[in-house]
C-alpha cells in the first residue's frame, strides 16, 4: 500500500474530503449560484417592500403582525425559505447524480471512503452553500433596513437549521429514487409550495383555521421562521416554544441524516 495512505485519518476526515469535492463541483456554478442568491432576495424585498407590504399596511396597519412592519415580519420566513431551497438543490440533484446519472458515489466508494462519509459529506457541502446564500440574504435585509444588525444575525442560524432539517429528509428521499420522472413535480407542487404558503410565511400560523395549522407544525419552515422572528425582533414567543422549535429542527435533521446514511450504505452495497 502507498505509505501516504492513512486509513484512520480517512476514517476521521473522509466526509470532509467528499464535501470538499462537492464544493469544488459547486464552484463551477458560482456565477449562477451567486446570481440566484443575489437576485432572489432583491426581487422579494422589492416586491414585498414596495408592493404587498404597502398594501397590507395601508389596509390593516401592523395589527395582524404583532405590530411589526410587514416586510420585517416575513423577512425571517424568506430567509428560511431561501435556506430550504438552497439545501434542497444541493441535497437532491447531487444525490441523484451520485447514484444514477453519473454514479459518482460508486467512484468515491471504490476508495476507503464509506457510504456514511459520502452522505455526511454531501450534507455538509449543502449546508456550506446555504450559509453562503443566507448570509447574502441577511446582508440585503440589513441594506434594506428590514432588520437591525445585532442579535438578528441569529436569523441566519435559524434559517440554516430549517434548511438543514428539510434537506436531511430530502436527501433520504433522493437516495431512494430509482426513477426520478415524477419526483420533482410532486415535490414542488405537493410539498414545497404548500409548505411555503401554509407555514406562517405571509401571516401568523395562528390566523389560519386550526385544521390547516398542522401543516405548519410539521414544517421545518415554520419552526425556522418562528425562531428567526424571535431573533430579528421581539416577537414574544415563550422559552418553551423556542425549545420546541429547536428540538424539532434538530430531531428532524438527525432522523433524516440517519435514514440517509443507512440508505446510502444499502444502495452502494447492492
Amino acid at each position, binding site marked *: *500500500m*502507498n505509505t*501516504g*495512505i*492513512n*486509513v484512520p*485519518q*480517512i*476514517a476521521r*476526515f*473522509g466526509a470532509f*474530503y*467528499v464535501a*470538499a*469535492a462537492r464544493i*469544488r*463541483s459547486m464552484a*463551477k456554478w458560482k456565477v449562477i449560484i451567486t446570481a440566484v442568491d443575489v437576485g432572489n432576495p432583491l426581487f422579494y424585498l422589492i416586491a414585498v417592500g414596495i408592493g404587498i407590504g404597502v398594501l397590507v399596511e395601508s389596509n390593516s396597519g401592523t395589527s395582524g403582525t404583532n405590530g411589526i412592519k410587514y416586510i420585517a415580519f416575513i423577512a425571517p420566513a424568506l430567509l428560511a425559505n431561501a435556506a430550504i431551497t438552497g439545501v434542497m438543490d444541493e441535497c437532491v440533484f447531487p444525490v441523484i447524480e451520485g447514484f444514477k446519472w*453519473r*454514479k*459518482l458515489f*460508486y*467512484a*468515491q*466508494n*471504490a*476508495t*476507503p*471512503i*464509506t457510504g456514511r462519509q459520502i452522505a455526511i459529506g454531501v450534507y455538509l457541502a449543502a449546508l456550506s452553500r446555504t450559509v453562503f446564500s443566507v448570509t447574502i440574504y441577511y446582508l440585503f435585509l440589513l441594506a434594506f433596513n428590514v432588520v437591525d444588525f445585532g442579535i438578528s444575525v441569529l436569523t441566519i442560524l435559524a434559517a440554516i437549521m430549517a434548511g438543514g432539517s428539510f434537506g436531511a429528509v430530502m436527501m433520504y428521499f433522493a437516495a431512494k429514487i430509482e426513477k426520478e420522472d415524477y419526483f420533482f413535480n410532486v415535490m414542488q407542487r405537493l410539498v414545497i409550495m404548500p409548505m411555503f404558503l401554509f407555514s406562517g410565511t405571509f401571516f401568523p400560523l395562528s390566523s389560519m383555521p386550526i385544521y390547516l395549522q398542522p401543516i405548519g407544525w410539521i414544517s421545518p419552515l415554520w419552526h425556522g421562521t418562528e425562531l428567526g422572528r424571535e431573533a430579528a425582533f421581539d416577537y414574544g414567543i415563550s422559552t418553551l416554544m423556542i425549545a420546541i422549535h429547536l428540538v424539532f429542527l434538530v430531531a428532524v435533521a438527525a432522523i433524516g441524516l440517519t435514514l440517509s446514511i443507512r440508505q446510502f450504505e444499502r444502495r*452502494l*452495497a*447492492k
Partner: protein
Amino acid sequence: MSNSLISVRGLTKNFDDFTAVNGVSFEVAKGESFGLLGPNGAGKSTIMRILAATSTRTAGTVEILDKDPEKFGPLVRAHLGVVPQQDNLDGELTVSENLFIYGRYFGLSKRFINAKIEELLVFAQLEEKRNVKVEALSGGMKRRLTIARGLVSEPDILLLDEPTTGLDPQARHILWDRLFRLKEQGVTLVLTTHFMDEAEQLCDRIVVMDKGAIMAEGSPAGLIKEYSSKEVLEVRFGSDRNVEVAPVLQKMCERMETLPDRILMYADDGEKLLEQITAQKLHPTTSLVRRSSLEDVFLRLTGRTLIE
C-alpha cells in the same frame, strides 16, 4: 502472509432467488495478470464488486491481502485501484481535478497527488487535456483517465471490469498497450472481459466462467491446448446446406461445431482437412483456416459462443 494477494473459496452470491455466483474459487498471486472470461451475465462483475469490497457475499470466504473485504472494507480498498465497467468520472471537473479529488479520497497529500498527476497524465496520454472538462473527452480518453484515476494511489491490485467494452478498435489497442505497460511494471491486474483477444493479450491466467460458475482455469495457451485442437477450419455452405453436409464432415475431424452461419472443424492441420473436403466434392462457399482461440474453448465448454 500467504503468496496470494487474493484468495477466493466457494464464493456464492444470491440476489433473491437468482444465484449470480455459484461456489467460485481462485487465487491471484502478486504481479500476476488474472482474467475472468465469460459472456454477459456470467457473474464476473458481481465477483469484481465483492473483490472491490463494495458488495457482500452470500457464502464462501474472500481474502484480499489476508483481510476479509466485508469486515475491513476501507482498509482493503486502500490497496485497490478500481476501474468500473461504466466510467464514473465527474464530468464537470477537469481531467487533473478528477485525479486530484480521487487522490484526496485516499487521504494523500496535495504535494504527492500533484506530482502523481503529472506522471499519470503522461501514462494516459492526456497531458494536453489536463485542463479540459471530462465531458469533452472521447470515450477512449475517458477510459484512459479512469484507469489513471485508479492508479493515483499506487494500488497493489488494479481491478478492471470490462476495460475496453464500447471502445473502437484503435482505442482498444491504445488501452491494451497501457495495460501491458502496467503488467510489465509488476502491477497485479484482475480484469473481466468477454473479449477472448483481450484475455489472450493481457492475462497470464484466466478462469472461464458461465452462469456463475467456473468452467475451466489455466493460461490462455494452456486452455487452448487442453480444450481445443491446434487449428480450426471454418467452412460455410450456405445456411440450408450446412445441416445437410454436417454428418459427412463430422467423420472427417476430431470435433465439430455447427453454428447457424458456419461449421467449425477442429484439427491439427486445417489446410489438409480442407483438401479432404474438396476431394469429397463438397465445395464450401467460403473457408478459413485459423489457430484455435479462447472462443473455441468457451464453445467446447458451454456449447455457446461468448457473444451471442
